């Protein structure tokens, strides 16, 4: 069989040692724009040692709380981000996708979209899920476009969910059903 389920056209999904991941995360966390796009936590900094311990503790859990991968470029094997799935995989066949490209010099070049396509193929062909969800902040149109390209559909918004830079921002919900993904045939 001539297929690597964890490889796309531009990137592959990888397993990383906790220290490697921790070093990258610690560096990416210093980029507060990245943090603003990533999650709703207050921006804060953690040492490499602290991050290593957290990652190790998560890895020891059985089953792991999520399917988390590193994202490396095929071109020069650079670690540029992370992505994966978590959620009610059993019994509802549903998971939540998350992705973050920490290396800002590779933003807007299709790496994230390619990684998401690989994550979706993994979700639908390997985990046999029925749908994949995600949420995204309204001030992140680049991510919204990327998710649409991968096949996600807008499903709703929690109005004024975030309070940042002195104003309220919506949280947008998107999802893709197994049938929609099969119809797109992006895998």
């Amino acid at each position: 069989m001539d297929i690597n389920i964890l490889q796309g056209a531009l990137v592959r999904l990888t397993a990383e040692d906790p220290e490697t991941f921790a070093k990258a995360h610690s560096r990416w966390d210093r980029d507060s724009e990245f943090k603003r796009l990533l999650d709703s936590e207050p921006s804060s900094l953690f040492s490499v040692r602290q991050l290593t311990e957290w990652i190790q503790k998560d890895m020891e859990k059985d089953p792991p709380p999520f399917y988390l991968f590193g994202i490396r470029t095929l071109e020069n094997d650079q670690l540029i981000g992370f992505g994966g799935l978590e959620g009610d995989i059993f019994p509802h066949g549903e998971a939540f996708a998350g992705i973050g490209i920490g290396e800002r010099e590779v933003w807007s070049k299709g790496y994230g979209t390619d990684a998401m396509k690989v994550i979706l193929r993994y979700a639908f062909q390997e985990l046999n899920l029925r749908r994949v969800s995600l949420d995204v902040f309204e001030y992140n149109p680049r991510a919204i476009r990327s998710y649409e390209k991968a096949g996600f559909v807008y499903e709703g918004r929690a109005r004024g969910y975030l309070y940042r830079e002195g104003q309220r921002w919506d949280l947008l919900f998107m999802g893709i059903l197994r049938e929609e993904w099969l119809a797109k045939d992006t895998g």
Partner: protein
Amino acid sequence: MKNDLLAGELVHLTAENPEVMAECFSRWNRDTEWLRFLDTDPPRLLSAKKWKEWLEKNLEKDVTDEVFFAIRTLEADTLIGFIGLFDLYQQHGDALVAIALGERKFWGNGYGTDAMRVMLRYAFNELNLRRVGLIVFEYNPRARRSYEKVGFVPEGRIRGAMQREGRRWDWLYMGILREEWLAKGIMTR
């Protein structure tokens, strides 16, 4: 000025000892229709002892992102359910609310709606939140009507989020903003 912030017209919100709550949870969980409305987990039956241990362990934790109350009727002080705020993000002023009436003979009589009104007052007047959200399953129109009555607005539909009784079901997301709650003028005193 109202003297009991945690009392409505039909119910009041209370704190219960673990053994009281454990007995209720263990009994309510035998009602699988109730569980179908409550969450996405497969029904699992835990003994009252197991529930008590779990609740006691929770008490030891210093939880800052949750608020939990039991619901008792004003009339006879019957413990009929619970209500809580979860995923409370203080920095954003946002939380998710969840409510459940385990005693089914109190369904459809306005107790849940009243408890939700009290909780919203607590969320907006006491915790000073900016919005409260919730999730309801598409096969629970009674809950949806109750949420609409207290001012929740539909915000989205997560298509086919659950697999039950052999088919997919949607989740409905609803939310209420602080301004909307203030404009309704209910229980703002």
